[in-house]
């Protein structure tokens, strides 16, 4: 190609020099105060130069013919595609390189002829315009080819392969705080099986094979000053591809008004989806897009980052606006974990964002991200506070039947069991928040065993939450008329609390001392229960005069009857009570058994003389077996079955 070029310059070069000299001479001649001698020399020179020019022109006619021939050739190559239904780059590498060669040739001819145009020559001018016309056709065609290549070889990737929807706390607690009466959904043990969550994952958005083609088109268009057209076409296709991918992820544009009015379950799944899409869009899609821009437009200064920004801006703003809408919505407690997910995702992505949009033009996007992060943090704190308020203000009008584990307790404990996963974030956000309510309770007097975890901000807040919960449970226990049931209720609930803490990472934050204290608490309630229920029953069996050997028969009969009635009454009531934890139920039965059965056996043993069938309604074994029926959650009666 370069060899061809020298053909024009010999001719062009001569013409150039002469034209320039002629120009200078004419300019000098126009100067007013010249000496006559000098003027004469210039006039001579002028006529001399005119002669040379006409000499060259007669030779140059030949040069122009050369140029015209070369243009004809290039034109044929370029124009034949205008009627061909095939796309050039689809037709094969040979066709593509031939075309580029023809474009290059035309470009050179245009440049060469332009250099000549000082010299007014009709023929030259005509050829130049023809060349420029052909050149425009070629550029227009290249733009089409570019779009075609980008669209045809654009590749969509499956998001599933990128991030296994690794929402670690996926299914848990989507129900709202209000619907606290439901049994919480079982936590699925979906582990965070992400493939290197922090690692960037770059895919080829456009097939790698065609990158050199795109680059070659970029090179031609940019060197010919058709850069803006290239950018517009490139941005247009890539922007649309991103938008299509965005909707392929199942993300749709929502107005803020829509988001604010959305039902919780729906909003929760959208928040989930946002977290997931945000990661894929930023870490995979945009990172890949950035790479594509750099590959194609790398050597062209800020062009690459300009295109990248234009392609991604609208989609990014869509994502940001959803985040804003969520952050400004009502701060309901159930939103907390989702908000924390969003917060963590965003915090995690900030570095990526800062790199992707590092140029000045992208600082707008950077700023928006930082602002949203702040807003999500505020919103999470507000939801956290709302959570505690909701716990303390959760009121009941009626006692919870059976004295089992209250749904509020289940809700709260299962919810806060998730907190350790957000340990760092919560600590960061709660650092300057005072737990407020029940501050004393949360002060750790743990002495030397105070570890780092039990004294971190989250630990304070956790203990503050459970103490809120405890006082609410105490309030709820007051709704029972039966003192024994109050104790069963508190025993059950505190036991549940402790179990939840012990059985999860929460124990690290609550500490052994807290656990010991609360173990003692529910055991105390168990003892209180026994006293409240069984003291009066067992009192029938007590020997009032320990000195004398036995009581009168009538006293015995009366005691026996009293015991039977009291025992049957307890049986009837307490079979309907419930102790959901089997171990706890077992323990309480054993200790009750120890107390009651032992007393009954002693009582009967002491009064063997009177123990005929008629007045001893229940044998020791009956009593022992009957005790096993207690706390089963369904009421039973001993009345109708006088005999076993």
């Amino acid at each position: 190609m370069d060899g061809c070029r020298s053909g024009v310059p010999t001719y062009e070069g001569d013409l150039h020099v002469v034209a320039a000299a002629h120009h200078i001479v004419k300019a000098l001649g126009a100067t007013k105060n010249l000496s006559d001698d000098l003027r004469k020399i210039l006039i001579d020179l002028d006529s001399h130069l005119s002669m040379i020019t006409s000499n060259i022109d007669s030779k140059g006619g030949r040069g122009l013919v050369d140029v015209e021939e070369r243009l004809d050739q290039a034109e044929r190559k370029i124009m034949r595609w205008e009627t061909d239904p095939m796309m050039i780059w689809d037709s094969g590498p040979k066709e593509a390189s031939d075309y580029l060669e023809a474009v290059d040739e035309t470009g050179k001819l245009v440049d060469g002829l332009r250099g000549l145009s000082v010299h007014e020559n009709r023929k030259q001018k005509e050829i130049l315009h023809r060349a420029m016309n052909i050149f425009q056709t070629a550029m227009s065609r290249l733009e089409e080819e570019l779009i075609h290549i980008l669209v045809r070889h654009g590749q969509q990737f499956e998001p599933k392969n990128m991030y296994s929807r690794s929402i670690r706390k996926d299914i848990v607690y989507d129900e709202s705080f209000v619907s606290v009466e439901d049994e919480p959904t079982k936590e699925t043990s979906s582990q965070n099986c992400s493939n290197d969550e922090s690692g960037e994952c770059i895919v080829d958005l456009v097939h790698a094979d065609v990158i050199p083609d795109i680059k070659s088109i970029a090179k031609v268009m940019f060197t010919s000053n058709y850069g803006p057209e290239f950018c517009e076409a490139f941005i247009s296709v890539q922007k649309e591809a991103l938008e299509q991918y965005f909707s392929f992820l199942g993300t749709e544009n929502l107005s803020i008004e829509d988001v604010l009015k959305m039902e919780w379950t729906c909003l929760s799944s959208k928040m989930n989806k946002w977290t997931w899409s945000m990661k894929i869009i930023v870490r995979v899609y945009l990172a890949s897009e950035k790479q594509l821009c750099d590959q194609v437009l790398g050597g062209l200064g800020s062009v690459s980052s300009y295109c990248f920004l234009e392609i991604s801006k609208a989609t990014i703003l869509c994502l940001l606006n959803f985040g804003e809408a969520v952050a400004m919505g009502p701060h309901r407690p159930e939103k907390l974990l989702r908000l924390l997910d969003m917060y963590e995702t965003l915090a995690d992505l900030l570095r990526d964002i800062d790199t992707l949009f590092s140029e000045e033009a992208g600082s707008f996007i950077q700023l928006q991200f930082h602002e949203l992060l702040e807003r999500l943090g505020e919103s999470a704190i507000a939801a956290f506070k709302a959570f505690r308020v909701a716990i303390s203000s959760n009121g009941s009008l009626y006692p919870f039947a059976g004295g089992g584990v209250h749904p509020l307790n289940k809700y709260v404990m299962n919810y806060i069991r998730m907190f350790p996963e957000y340990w760092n974030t919560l600590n960061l956000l709660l650092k300057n928040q005072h737990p407020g309510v029940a501050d004393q309770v949360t002060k750790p007097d743990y002495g030397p065993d105070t570890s780092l975890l039990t004294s971190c901000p989250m630990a304070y807040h956790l203990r503050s939450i459970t103490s809120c919960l405890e006082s609410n449970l105490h309030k709820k226990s007051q709704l029972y008329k039966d003192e024994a049931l109050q104790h069963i209720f508190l025993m059950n609930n505190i036991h549940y609390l402790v179990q939840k803490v012990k059985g999860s990472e929460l124990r690290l934050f609550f500490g052994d001392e807290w656990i010991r204290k609360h173990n003692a608490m529910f055991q105390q309630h168990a003892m209180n229960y026994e006293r409240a229920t069984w003291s009066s029953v067992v009192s029938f069996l007590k020997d009032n005069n320990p000195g004398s050997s036995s009581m009168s028969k009538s006293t015995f009969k009366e005691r026996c009857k009293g015991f039977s009635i009291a025992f049957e009454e307890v049986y009837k009531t307490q079979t309907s009570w419930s102790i959901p934890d089997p171990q706890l139920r077992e323990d309480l039965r054993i200790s009750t058994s120890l107390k009651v059965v032992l007393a009954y056996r002693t009582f009967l043993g002491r009064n063997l003389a009177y123990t005929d069938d008629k007045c001893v309604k229940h044998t020791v074994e009956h009593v022992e077996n009957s005790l096993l029926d207690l706390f089963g959650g369904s009421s039973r009666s001993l009345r109708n079955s006088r005999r076993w």
Partner: protein
Amino acid sequence: MTGTDQSSFLGRISIRRNQVNAMEGYHEQEIEDLELFQRQLSDRFTELLSAPDDAPTEAFLSISWIRKLLDVFLCCETECKAILLMERDAAQISKPPLDRLIPELLERVVKAMDICNAVTNGVELVRHCQKLAEIAVSALEQKPFGEGQARRAKKALVSLMSAMHVDDKESSVQKTAERSWSFGRRSGNKDRHHGHYRSLSWQVAKHWSASKQIHAMTMNLAAPRGPEASCLPAPVYILSLIIVFVMWVLIAAIPCQERSGLTTHLPINKHVNWTHSLAGIHDKIGEEWKKKEKKGMAGLLYEMQKMEKLGQSLIEFTDSYQFPGEKEKSDEVAAQVAELAEVCRRMDEGLVPLQMLIREAFHRLVRNRTEFLDVLEQGAPVV
């Protein structure tokens, strides 16, 4: 807008409130504050109204004019909120009729946020037009000029015109969004250039309509009467009206999703002094809108109007151009190209800052809403 104006105003309210809070004469002070505020409002809108219709810079509805309008909006918003909330007992805000007026205001605020986002998308479209016009300018400025350059310019200008004139109805958006790329030779390429700015990201949401939002925002927007006109309902009304008005201007000026049927009648109470200039601006824009609406258009933004006119005329030129071209025509065209280049330059300077300012207004509305909600929460009777 001078910063000192505002800070002195805010300082004044703050000092007053501290001094006279809970004392006799509190109400009189409030009335005085409100009057001062309204005088300032009146001045600001008078200044905006006095902008020339056609001028190289700062013309009525130009980018720089809209930036000024947004500055005024931000100032008013701050001051109005100061009058309403600063040093005030939360209980006052939650009493009738404010317990109704404030939630209504907040609903308008939410709608205004969506409008801000819609208009932000619209500014993107304007920037796209700017890029196309720049291509046309650079082609038309080429020396020597020939048919090749004329064709290049025409291609850009035709794209520019169709980008401007695609109507903002949803149907067309969907058509664009659902259109699949054609792999065949040169089919489906026609609307590519403007299509992508009207595709998915152009939408605020499905079925969202800017004109319906404005309509909803004007519902229940009535000037307080009688004794209410001089106390708290007054600033609530002022703030509401200014939000609605500014959003309405943005929608009229900058293309955005679904503007057909945009009302040209905002419920402005013309019986109070401060609204005179505001009403003047409103009437002027309303008239323009009525004239232009039927044609299907890019919006009343001064630069876009100018671009549309120049673009049309330059298309005619490129259409009829034949090498070597007429001498006398070229001067006229050169002047138009220079003018178009100037419009591009102003867009280049102004659009990004405008977009940021709209975003700032958006964030301000978000904060504003949070503050009101906090106060309402404080003032809410304890259950």
